[in-house]
């Protein structure tokens, strides 16, 4: 029966007929710097595995990239990361797979960083509001006080999902023998979809609030994709906070071991190496057009003939010497020469205006040239009119900074919630 095998659900029965099957929307957070095939594959594997378990029905998925305020080294701007995700999630022009993963822009466009638990809360508030028929603002939980914006596309979509669930549940309740069938209260919830590396980060002191971990494990649940180097089963066994809720934590095996990571892709781009087939072509095209992550535009397009190989060689053999632009929270741009990956840490002061820097954007020299001017906007008047001696001094001190910071050991592993320490209430 083509219809039967067509639907990813347990059977052709009316949707809400089996109340023991939990309705779930998968939410994945992360930097998506850039989005890779592995990020996308994770949703596909999760959907299939949850369906197969017979316990869940997956209604859809949301990808919620982190805000720029996260302050991570070499994090491309939210604008770029969102656009790359949009390209990756757009189905191909010709008949293709239905789009079931939405791009959640709320978290990315906020001025400050949002703990994962609050992202879950926000979208859950929309679901709950529709389930209980109340306004979202009254059900918004948590100290974050996140009220669900009536105009947020993902909240609207979630509410639509719930309305459809309700109407099909109503239909099945009226049909058949309602005396026998107990109409369980309709429920739908978000589940956090993540890699085993994020789960392991629960153990890092100060990174996650204990109550957040418990809430995520107890009230939402997690779907965890195995990754080489991590042992999620062992971690759940050892972690007291989440162990009681083991039954809510689904571990996915991914037999096509896919070790593609965004850091590896950024590294390859810096080195002028190919990242083809690790992420969608449309995203690669975007990266090269906007010269993100220190890549060389000529490498992508000069792929075939003899003449283009010179470009490829140059890309591969040259060091990542793209000039980096550091943008402070007041929006001024100070140009740093030399090594491309200096990391100005959170709380560093902008050399130009003294503002505390919370956002770092690194662009290649080509993109910097595209932008107007060399003088930062907020420089005091006399400097804009070019006291060149002062400018040179400023450049030197910036370079020294770059050199000393470049000597720092590279950050390893996900550092998502580092800034949480600062905002602990």
């Amino acid at each position, binding site marked *: 029966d083509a219809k039967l*095998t067509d639907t990813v659900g347990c059977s052709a029965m009316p949707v809400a007929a089996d109340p023991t099957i939990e309705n779930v929307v998968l939410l994945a957070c992360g930097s998506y710097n850039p989005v890779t*095939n592995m990020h996308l594959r994770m949703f596909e594997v999760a959907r*299939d595995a949850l369906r197969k378990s017979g316990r869940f029905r997956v209604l859809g998925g949301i990808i919620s990239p982190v805000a720029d305020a996260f302050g991570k080294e070499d994090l491309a701007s939210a604008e770029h990361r969102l656009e790359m995700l949009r390209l990756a999630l757009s189905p191909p022009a010709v008949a293709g797979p239905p789009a079931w993963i939405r791009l959640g822009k709320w978290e990315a466009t906020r001025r400050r960083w949002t703990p994962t638990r609050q992202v879950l809360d926000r979208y859950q508030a929309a679901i709950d509001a529709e389930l209980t028929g109340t306004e979202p603002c009254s059900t918004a939980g948590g100290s974050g006080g996140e009220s669900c914006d009536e105009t947020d596309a993902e909240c609207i979509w979630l509410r639509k999902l719930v309305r*459809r669930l309700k109407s099909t549940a109503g239909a099945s309740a009226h049909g058949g023998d309602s005396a026998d069938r107990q109409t369980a209260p309709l429920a739908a919830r978000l589940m956090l979809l993540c890699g085993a590396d994020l789960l392991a980060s629960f153990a890092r002191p100060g990174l996650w609030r204990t109550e957040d971990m418990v809430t995520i494990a107890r009230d939402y649940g997690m779907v965890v994709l195995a990754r080489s180097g991590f042992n999620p089963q062992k971690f759940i066994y050892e972690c007291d906070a989440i162990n009681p809720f083991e039954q809510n934590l689904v571990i996915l095996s991914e037999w096509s071991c896919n070790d593609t990571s965004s850091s590896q892709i950024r590294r390859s781009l810096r080195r002028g190496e190919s990242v083809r087939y*690790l992420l969608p072509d449309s995203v690669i095209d975007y990266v090269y057009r906007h010269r993100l992550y220190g890549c060389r535009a000529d490498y992508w397009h000069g792929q*075939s*003939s*003899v003449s283009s190989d010179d470009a*490829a060689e140059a890309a591969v053999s040259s060091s990542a010497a793209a000039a980096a632009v550091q943008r402070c929270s007041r929006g001024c741009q100070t140009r740093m020469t030399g090594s491309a990956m200096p990391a100005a840490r959170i709380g560093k002061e902008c050399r130009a205006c003294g503002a505390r820097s919370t956002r770092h954007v690194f662009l290649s020299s080509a993109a910097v040239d595209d932008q107007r001017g060399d003088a930062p906007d907020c420089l005091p008047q006399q400097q804009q009119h070019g006291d060149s001696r002062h400018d040179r001094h400023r450049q030197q001190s910036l370079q020294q900074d770059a050199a000393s910071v470049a000597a720092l050991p590279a950050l390893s592993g996900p550092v998502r919630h580092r800034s949480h320490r600062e905002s602990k209430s």
Partner: protein
Amino acid sequence: MHYIVLVAGGSFNPVTNMHLRMFELARDALIKTGQFKVLGGIVSPVSDGYNKPGLLPSKHRIEMLKLALGRGGCSDGIPSSWIRLGTWEAVRSQWTPTRKVLDHYQRRIDAMLADTDEAQLNGPPDGKRSRIDEESDELAWLRSLVAKLRAKESQPDVRIMLLCGGDVLQSFAVKGVWQEEDMVSIVRDYGMVVLSRPGSDPHRFVHTFDLINPYERNIRLVTEWAVNDISSTLIRRTLQRNESVRYMLPDPVIDYIYRNGLYGSTASWPRLENFAD
């Protein structure tokens, strides 16, 4: 400076992102040595005469490769301009040993370089071909590459190199799979680029295998640090189970598989109970 054309054989049943990635990694690795420039790559799917159970007719495998390389017409990606589909092996009724496939392409290239290439003698000298020719004829494409190269260098050294995975290299040691003289010819006259996973130790194999060890320097071993275990076997199994293969092979190829009901898949992309739309 050696100019290389990489040739990869295999079933491509179906083609996956891993196959395509292999070319990219090999190319980067060769360029990085500073001794090579990579002119192009040729994918040479095996013919139906290979008689492997479950091997789809070459018609399908060729079409899927065309879609994967962006030449099938229906593609959302950017065509790979340096990797081409080679159909010489696939259209032969009998199976062709790998060494003979390499011989075939090398001979044609040598003829182009020596101006004894028949088609070249008969056709327009500057290599301007119609687009249809370019797309369906990997030799026409090679011809144009060689012509461009000769405009820059008088006596270029253009070689075929075999591109393969570590499993193929290890199969050298399995009795009956390879002819000894073929193995020697491949490592001595052509050279190999072998992609292996971390921890698989191809170096030890080359060290201990007497037959090929003398030509060790012609065997380039590349480690694939980001392991991508997307094998065709796994893809077929996943399709059979009506599970998603998305992001493991190009979307147009997946589309083709569903439309033609290949590998036991159902007729369309798996759908959600999609409430919202």
